[in-house]
C-alpha cells in the first residue's frame, strides 16, 4: 500500500473517530448540564451527589447513563457488561483457536497468529472477565445488601474502571504473544516469532490492569468493612460479602509484589538488568500472584453459589460459620501453594517437598465449601430446578472434577508426567468454565429482570444455553485430560498425529460451548425487546442475612417486599 493511500485512509479513519468522540462528548455534556441544572434547583452543589441520591436504593437497570453516573451500582453495571463483552471476545478467540487445531499441522492460521490468540484468550479471560465480573457483582449487589451508609467513592471507582478497561484494550492491541505468565527472556524478545513486536505495550497494559484492579479491590474492601450499615454485624453479613472481603485481601496481598515485578520487566525491555541472569526469578515473582489470581476467580463464585442454593431451596446455609471459616482458610492457604507451577524447574528437592505437601492441604477448605453446599441441598424439602440452580449444580459437579484433578497434579509423580500438557488445561477449564462462567451466568439470569428493567428471559433458550455449556465443557475438558496424561503438549499450534482424536473431540466440545454462548446472546437480545412484566427489584439484595430462614414465608421476593423486608 503506497504511502499516499495510507495517509488518505488514516486521515479518513482519524476524522471519523474524531467526529464520533465529539458526538459522544456532546451528548454526555448536554445531558450533564441538564442534570446539573436540576441538581442546582433541588439544592445540590455537586450533580454526582444528586444522581447518587436519586438512584439510592432503587434497582439500577442497564442504560447509557451507566457510563457517566458514578454511583456504586452504575459502576457495577459497567464492570459486569464490560466483562461480559470480553467474555464473548475471548470466548470467540478460544473457540477459533480450538477449530484451528483440527489438523496436526497448522493449516487454518499460522503459528504466530495462534500464539497471539493464545495469549489474548488467557489474559482477557482471567483479568477482564473473571476479575471484572467479580468486582462488578460486588459493586452491584453489596450497596443494598449491606445497606451502605454512604457511597462517596464514585470518582475513584470510575477511574479504576477506565484504567482497567484501557489496560485490557491496550493489551489486545499490542498483539502480545508472551503467554499470560510473561516469562522473560521470551517476553523481552520483541519479534513476531517471540513475544510480538509491540510487547512493551503489552507489559505496560498488564501494569494498568493491575492498577485498576488493585484500586477497585481496595474500594470494595472499604465498602464492606467500613461503610456497612451499623445494624449488620459481621456475624450476620451475607456470605457473598465475606467472599469479596477475602478476595480483596488476597488480591491486594498477592498483586503488589508482581506489580513491582512487571515494572522491573518493563524496565528490562529497555535495559535488561533484572531478569536475564536467571529468568526463574521472574517466574517465582509471577506465580506468587499467579495462583491466588485463579482463586480470585473462584472465591466470589463460591459466595454467590451459597446465595443461589439458599434461594432455591428456601433453607439457610448448612453452617454459616464453617462456610466463612473455609473461605478464609482458602485465602490463607492459596498464598502458600504457588510453587507447584515450578516443580520441574530445578529449584531443588525442598521446593518440591514443601509445595507438593501444601498443595494437598489447599484442598481442605474447598472440600468444606462443597460439603457445606451439598449439605444445604440435603436439608431442603423442595429444590426448584430453575436455570440458575442448574448452573450452580453443574458448578459444584465441575468444581469437584476439576478440583480433584488439581489435587492429583499436586503429586510430584503426576506433575512430572502431566505438567505442561493438556491435563493441566483440562483441570482449570473444568473450574473456570464450570464455576466462574457457570455462576456468572446463574447470577446474570437471576438479575436479568433488574438489568432489563422488568423483562424476563426466555427460559427454554436459557435451558438450551445451560445444556450446551455443561455438555461442551465436560467433553472438552475430559478429552484434554485424557490426551494430556499421555503427553499431549499445551499451547501448540500443531501436534503429533497420534493426538488427533483427543484434539478433535475437544474441538467438538469447544464448538458446543460456542453455540451455547450464541444462544445466550440471542436470548439477551430477544428477551430485552419484550414488554416489561415483572417487578424489577433486585431479588439478590433482599435477603441480607443468608442464615435467617425464610422458610416460614414460602413466598417470593415480591411478597417479601410487602412484608416490609424491602431492604431499603
Amino acid at each position: 500500500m503506497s504511502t499516499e493511500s495510507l495517509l488518505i485512509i488514516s486521515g479518513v479513519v482519524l476524522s471519523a473517530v474524531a467526529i464520533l468522540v465529539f458526538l459522544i462528548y456532546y451528548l454526555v455534556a448536554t445531558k450533564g448540564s441538564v442534570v446539573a441544572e436540576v441538581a442546582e434547583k433541588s439544592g445540590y452543589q455537586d450533580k454526582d451527589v444528586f444522581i447518587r441520591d436519586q438512584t439510592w436504593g432503587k434497582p439500577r437497570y442497564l442504560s447509557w447513563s451507566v457510563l457517566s453516573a458514578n454511583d456504586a451500582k452504575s459502576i457495577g453495571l459497567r464492570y459486569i457488561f464490560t466483562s461480559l463483552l470480553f467474555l464473548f471476545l475471548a470466548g470467540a478467540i478460544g473457540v477459533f483457536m480450538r477449530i484451528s487445531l483440527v489438523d496436526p499441522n497448522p493449516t487454518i492460521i499460522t503459528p504466530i497468529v495462534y500464539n497471539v490468540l493464545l495469549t489474548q484468550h488467557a489474559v482477557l479471560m482471567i483479568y477482564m472477565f473473571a476479575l471484572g465480573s467479580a468486582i462488578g457483582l460486588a459493586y452491584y449487589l453489596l450497596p443494598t445488601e449491606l445497606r451502605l451508609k454512604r457511597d462517596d467513592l464514585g470518582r475513584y471507582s470510575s477511574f479504576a474502571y477506565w484504567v482497567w478497561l484501557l489496560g485490557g484494550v491496550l493489551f489486545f492491541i499490542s498483539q502480545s504473544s508472551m503467554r499470560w505468565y510473561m516469562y522473560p527472556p521470551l517476553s523481552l524478545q520483541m519479534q513476531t516469532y517471540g513475544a510480538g513486536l509491540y510487547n512493551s505495550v503489552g507489559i505496560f497494559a498488564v501494569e494498568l490492569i493491575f492498577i485498576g484492579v488493585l484500586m477497585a479491590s481496595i474500594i470494595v474492601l472499604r465498602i464492606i468493612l467500613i461503610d456497612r450499615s451499623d445494624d449488620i454485624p459481621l456475624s450476620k453479613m451475607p456470605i457473598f460479602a465475606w467472599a469479596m472481603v477475602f478476595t480483596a485481601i488476597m488480591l491486594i496481598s498477592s498483586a503488589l509484589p508482581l506489580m513491582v515485578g512487571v515494572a522491573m520487566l518493563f524496565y528490562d525491555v529497555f535495559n535488561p538488568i533484572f531478569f536475564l541472569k536467571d529468568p526463574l526469578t521472574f517466574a517465582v515473582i509471577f506465580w506468587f500472584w499467579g495462583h491466588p489470581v485463579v482463586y480470585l476467580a473462584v472465591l466470589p463464585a463460591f459466595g454467590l453459589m451459597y446465595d443461589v442454593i439458599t434461594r432455591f431451596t428456601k433453607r439457610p446455609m448448612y453452617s454459616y460459620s464453617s462456610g466463612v471459616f473455609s473461605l478464609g482458610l482458602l485465602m490463607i492457604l492459596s498464598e502458600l501453594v504457588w510453587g507447584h507451577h515450578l516443580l520441574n524447574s530445578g529449584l531443588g528437592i525442598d521446593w518440591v517437598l514443601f509445595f507438593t505437601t501444601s498443595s494437598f492441604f489447599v484442598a481442605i477448605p474447598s472440600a468444606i465449601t462443597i460439603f457445606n453446599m451439598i449439605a444445604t441441598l440435603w436439608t431442603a424439602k423442595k429444590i426448584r430446578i430453575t436455570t440458575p440452580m442448574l448452573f450452580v449444580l453443574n458448578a459444584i459437579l465441575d468444581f469437584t472434577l476439576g478440583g480433584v484433578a488439581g489435587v492429583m497434579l499436586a503429586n510430584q509423580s503426576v506433575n512430572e508426567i502431566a505438567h505442561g500438557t493438556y491435563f493441566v488445561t483440562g483441570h482449570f477449564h473444568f473450574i473456570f468454565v464450570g464455576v466462574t462462567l457457570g455462576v456468572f451466568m446463574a447470577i446474570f439470569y437471576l438479575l436479568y429482570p433488574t438489568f432489563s428493567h422488568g423483562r424476563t428471559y426466555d427460559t427454554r433458550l436459557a435451558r438450551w444455553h445451560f445444556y450446551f455449556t455443561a455438555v461442551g465443557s465436560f467433553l472438552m475438558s475430559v478429552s484434554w485430560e485424557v490426551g494430556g496424561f499421555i503427553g499431549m503438549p499445551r499451547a501448540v499450534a500443531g501436534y503429533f498425529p497420534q493426538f488427533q482424536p483427543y484434539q478433535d473431540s475437544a474441538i467438538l466440545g469447544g464448538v458446543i460451548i460456542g453455540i451455547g454462548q450464541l444462544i445466550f446472546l440471542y436470548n439477551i437480545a430477544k428477551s430485552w425487546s419484550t414488554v416489561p412484566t415483572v417487578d424489577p427489584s433486585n431479588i439478590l439484595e433482599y435477603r441480607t442475612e443468608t442464615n435467617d430462614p425464610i422458610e416460614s414465608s414460602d413466598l417470593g421476593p415480591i411478597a417479601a417486599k410487602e412484608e416490609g423486608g424491602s431492604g431499603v
Partner: protein
Amino acid sequence: MQNIEKLITSFLIISIVIGIVAYFILGFLFSLHFIGVPGVPASQEAQPIIATGIAAMAFTILFMMYPVVKFGVKNDEGDDFR
C-alpha cells in the same frame, strides 16, 4: 437421621468399589504407556492417588445428585420464575 447414615455409607461403598476398579484399570493402562525410571515408579505411585481421586469424584457426585433427584422439582413457574 438413621436412613441418611445408611445412604451415605452405601454411597461410600459404591465409590470405594469404583475406586478399586479404577485402580486396576489404571494399572493396566499405565503398564502399556510408561517405561523405565522414573516412568514406572512414578506411575505406580500415581495409580492409588488417581484411583482415590476418582473414588472421591464418584462419592461427591452421588452425594450431590441424591437430594437433587429426590427433592428436585422441575417446574419453575411459581411466583417469580427467575
